[in-house]
Each structure stands twice: as structure tokens, then as C-alpha cells.
């Protein structure tokens, strides 16, 4: 049809029919570009441009209050090395991430194994274990903050048992552990569901064969379940670590980084330096550090995923 119309419009001197302007390939190209345009433009303006800017800012001494913006080269990066607060901050981030991963994953796996049993009403349990995921993050954090007060509900229950509880959020030894626990119960439901799906993917015949061979339940778990769900364990670990590095609201609400610097994680430190001390240049340098860590971990996850998907095939 298109060919016919083009031939009709062609001048008599052109013997061969010209190619139609809107070939299928061109229409596809146009449609494709239009479909992805909003997302592509969005990424350019709200992700890539700010990333370039944050790098540019990190090369400047920039104090908003004093209204100074001077190019200082790598000076902020040198300041990074000399910043005596930074090692404890990175340490706090590492402790938070490590504690979260260990506690979150072991609890998620335990819950998934329990939910994988054939029991009446198991769906109701699944719903309850999952419910904190949909509770507003700050609401959840406030309630736990309330429970963890020195004269709060948790110490009240402990006192009934004759134990004098610490001031959870204000003692150096317990503040970080408290923040980790609050975060684990908030989000462990997500990993629990991922593990449950992985457990249900393990072929039943393997367990039957093992049982015939007289393997105990624990041995079956160690030798069959764990190896077969190891891809899920790796993936949830990385997802949980990346999530842990972005934690902010919980710290801001529960401890404000204290006592001392014990719960000042990287994003909270970045926020303090930038928006409380108005050091936008140094704040940007900290953002580059955060970017480097998150990007490395995410790339590692993609690599691992590719390898495991390959192995599964």
C-alpha cells in the first residue's frame, strides 16, 4: 500500500520506485525512541547530571553560609583521609551492615523453613511475619523508640522478670544493636518470602533419597537445602547490605547518630556535614565514597547473579 502511493507521487523520470519514507524499521525506531524518551531523559536529568555535579562539587570548597565556592582540586579527598571522624563512621556503617545481614538472613531462613511446613493456618503466620514491611517506616521506628526508652515497655517486661534493663538507645553498647534489631524486624519479611520461594524450588525427591539413606533432618538441611538455596543467600546478602548502606530515617529518629558517634553511619554523616554544617563540598566527597561502595557491591551482585544463573542452566 505504501509502495503504491509512493510510486504514484514519483516523477516520471525516476524509473525505479523510491523506497518508502516510513519503512517498518523506521517506524519501529521512532516508536522505540518515543517509548523510552521519558525514562531516558529522566535518568539524564535526575541521575547522570547530579552524579557529574556531585563529582564536580567534591573538587570545591563550598560553604553556603559563607557563600564561598572555590576550586580546591583533590583537597576534599585529602581531608577525607585526615578526617578522624570518618574511620568510626565507616566502622559504624560496616557494623550496621554486617549485623543486619547476619541477623536478618538467619531469621529470614528460620522463618522460611517454619513457613514451609505443612501446618494449618500457615498463611496467617506468613501474613503476620510480613506485616511490618507495609507499616510506615517512621511509624515503626517511633514505636520501637518508645518501647526502647529507659522506662519503656521492654524494660518494663524485663523488670517483671527481675532484670534491670539498660537505656537501650543511649548506651554505647546497646544503641547500635537496638537500631539493627528494629530494622531487622521491619524488613525481614521480604527476605523470608525470597527464601520460602527458594525452599519450595528444591526438588522433593532429593529429601526422599536422603531419608532412605538415613540422613537426619539437620544433615538434610546442611547437605541439600543450604547448597541449593545458596544463590538466594548470596543475592539477599548483597541486597540487604546495599539497603543497609542507605539507612537514614531509623538513625535520625532513634539515636541521631549517638551516643558519641557510635551509630553515625555514612548517609547520616553525609547529611550532617551537608545540611547541618553546610559543607556542601565535603558532603559531596562523602557522597562519592557512598557511590563507590554501593556501585561496587551492586556490580558484584550482577556478576554473581550471572554466574549462578549460568550454573542453574
Amino acid at each position, binding site marked *: 500500500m505504501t509502495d503504491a502511493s509512493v510510486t504514484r507521487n514519483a516523477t516520471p523520470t525516476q524509473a525505479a520506485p523510491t523506497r518508502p519514507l516510513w519503512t517498518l524499521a523506521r517506524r*519501529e*525506531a521512532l*516508536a*522505540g525512541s518515543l*517509548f*523510552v524518551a*521519558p*525514562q*531516558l531523559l*529522566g*535518568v539524564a*536529568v*535526575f*541521575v*547522570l*547530571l*547530579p*552524579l557529574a555535579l*556531585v563529582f564536580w*562539587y567534591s573538587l570545591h570548597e563550598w560553604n553556603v553560609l559563607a557563600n564561598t565556592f572555590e576550586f580546591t582540586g583533590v583537597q576534599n579527598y585529602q581531608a577525607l583521609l585526615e578526617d578522624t571522624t570518618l574511620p568510626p563512621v565507616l566502622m559504624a556503617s560496616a557494623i550496621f551492615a554486617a549485623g543486619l545481614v547476619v541477623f536478618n538472613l538467619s531469621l529470614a531462613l528460620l*522463618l522460611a523453613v*517454619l513457613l514451609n511446613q*505443612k501446618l494449618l493456618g500457615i498463611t496467617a*503466620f506468613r*501474613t*503476620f*511475619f*510480613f*506485616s*511490618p514491611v507495609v507499616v*510506615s517506616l*517512621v*511509624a515503626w521506628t*517511633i*514505636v520501637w*523508640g*518508645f518501647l526502647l526508652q529507659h522506662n519503656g*515497655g521492654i524494660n*518494663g517486661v524485663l*523488670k*517483671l522478670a527481675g532484670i534491670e534493663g539498660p537505656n537501650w538507645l543511649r548506651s554505647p553498647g546497646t544503641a547500635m544493636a537496638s537500631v539493627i534489631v528494629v530494622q531487622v524486624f521491619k524488613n525481614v519479611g*521480604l*527476605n523470608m*518470602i*525470597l527464601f520460602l520461594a527458594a525452599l519450595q524450588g528444591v526438588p*522433593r525427591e532429593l529429601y526422599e533419597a536422603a531419608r532412605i539413606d538415613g540422613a537426619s533432618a539437620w544433615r538434610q538441611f546442611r547437605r541439600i537445602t543450604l547448597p541449593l538455596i545458596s544463590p538466594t543467600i548470596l543475592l539477599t546478602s548483597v*541486597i540487604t547490605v546495599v539497603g543497609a548502606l*542507605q539507612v*537514614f*530515617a531509623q538513625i535520625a529518629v532513634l539515636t541521631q547518630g549517638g551516643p558519641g558517634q557510635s551509630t553515625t553511619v555514612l*548517609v547520616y554523616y*553525609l547529611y550532617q556535614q*551537608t545540611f547541618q554544617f553546610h559543607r556542601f563540598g565535603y*558532603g559531596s566527597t562523602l557522597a*562519592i565514597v*557512598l*557511590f563507590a561502595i*554501593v556501585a561496587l557491591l*551492586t556490580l558484584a*551482585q550482577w556478576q554473581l547473579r550471572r554466574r549462578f544463573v549460568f550454573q542453574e542452566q
Partner: protein
Amino acid sequence: MHGRLPPRTQAALYGLMCLLLVPFVFPTWWMVTSSVKPISEIFAFPPQLWPTHADWSSYQQVFTLQPFARQYWNSAWIAAVVTLGTLGVASMAGYAFARIRFPGANALFVVVLTGLLIPSEVTIVPLFQMFRAMGLVNTHWPLVLIPIFGAPCVFATFIMRQFFITLPAELEEAARVDGLGRFKIFRTIALPLARPALASVAIFTFLHSWNLYLEPIVFLSTPSLFTLPQALTQFTDAYGGPMWNIQLAAATLTALPVLLVFVVAQKQFIEGLAHTGLK
């Protein structure tokens, strides 16, 4: 197949699960009951599981101390617009990357995926400066535009692409033979089939927007513009200490509607969020 477990094992498993349930369920219970406790009972010893009498005054104060109804509306409409916008942008981009062969598609997809490497915490400083230059600080624009077009949407695009890739090509072939354009095919064939993926993205995006905390406290300074997470922390006394019963009442009002929707549609929530959990 597994047989039924022996009764004693069953009882032990139920007992263990009920014990484990406490830290998941009790905080919500404590939040709701403490929000109607008289102020004298808030820190009473022994802890009161049930208030001696319901004192609803904290719920009145929630609305008088702050423009809470307005803040509720702010959170609700921002979450609604962000969810709809993300569904539009992500489903179109995801569809194109999965189904349309066009030059540069793979390279562009890699460019978009870089958004997954860059959490918004990294770019918050320049984003603040950009919106300040446009005179849009202390408005809702950054809270709407950044999620719809920026890093959070990239994740949604990725989910949508993974879904559209699984659609069999024959479904579209017939329509293309009939001469239907790409947009028509997308809207009348692909999109209706994508309902489960769209539901996942919608739930994930809504919760993300509803929970957003860093962006509001960076961009907003006028209480009538605040969103809920930010407003919750503002119920403090003259010394900056939290007014617990009022905070808990506000927290209850924030958490309960979503929890109720979850209870009704828990299957969609759990499957949807588990689906998006696997990046």
C-alpha cells in the same frame, strides 16, 4: 511427599512461631493501645497491655498541633501521582526495551540501568542545588519528579522489561499483520496482560513514596507542606522531647490504612513485593 507431622512436632512448631511472632506483632499492638492511654499510663509499671480507659484526646491534638489533615493529604496525593507516573514511564520504557527492536536499544538500556547503581542519597546534594536554582525548594515538585523520572523509576522499568520479555511474540504478530501501531498494541494487548507486574510496581512504588524521609526533610521547611514521616517526628514538647501519646496516635493514623489494605490484599502484596525484591 511429606506426610502430616506428628502432633507433638506440630505443637512445638506452633509454639515456636507464636513466640517469634511477638516482635512482629506486638509493636503495632503497643502503638495502637498506647495512643489511647491517658498520659499517666504511658510509662506505667507494670506495662499496661490494655488502657484502663480510652483517652482519645491525643487524636484531637494530632490535628490541632500540626496541620495533620493537610500533611496526610500531601503524602496521599504525592504517593498517588508518583505511583501513576512511575507506572506510565516504566511500563512504556520497559515495553520498548523488551519488545521493540530499535538502534541503540541495548546501549540505552545500559545507560538507564546505571540508575540502579546510584541511590538518591548519593545525588541529594546536587539535586537540592538544581531544584534551588529552579526555585522549587520547599515545594512538592522534587518529591514528585525525582521518583517518577529518577533512580526509583529505573528499578520499575527493569521489572516491567523482565515481564514483557516473557510475553509470547505471537500475541503481537496478529495485531501487527492487522496494521495496528505500536502504541495501540502496547495499550490494548501488552498492558492488560501486564497486570500482575503493574500491581507489583504500584505496591512497591506507593510504599517507597509513603516512607520517603530524607528527601522531604531536605526539601521542605513549611509544616503545611510536610509529608507524614516528617510530620510524625515533629510532635515534640518545648524541650524537643517526643510527646509520645500524640506521636503514637499520628503513627497509628499513618500505619493503619496501609495495614488494612494489606490484610485485604495480602497475597498481591507479598507476591508483588517478593517479585520486586529480586533485582
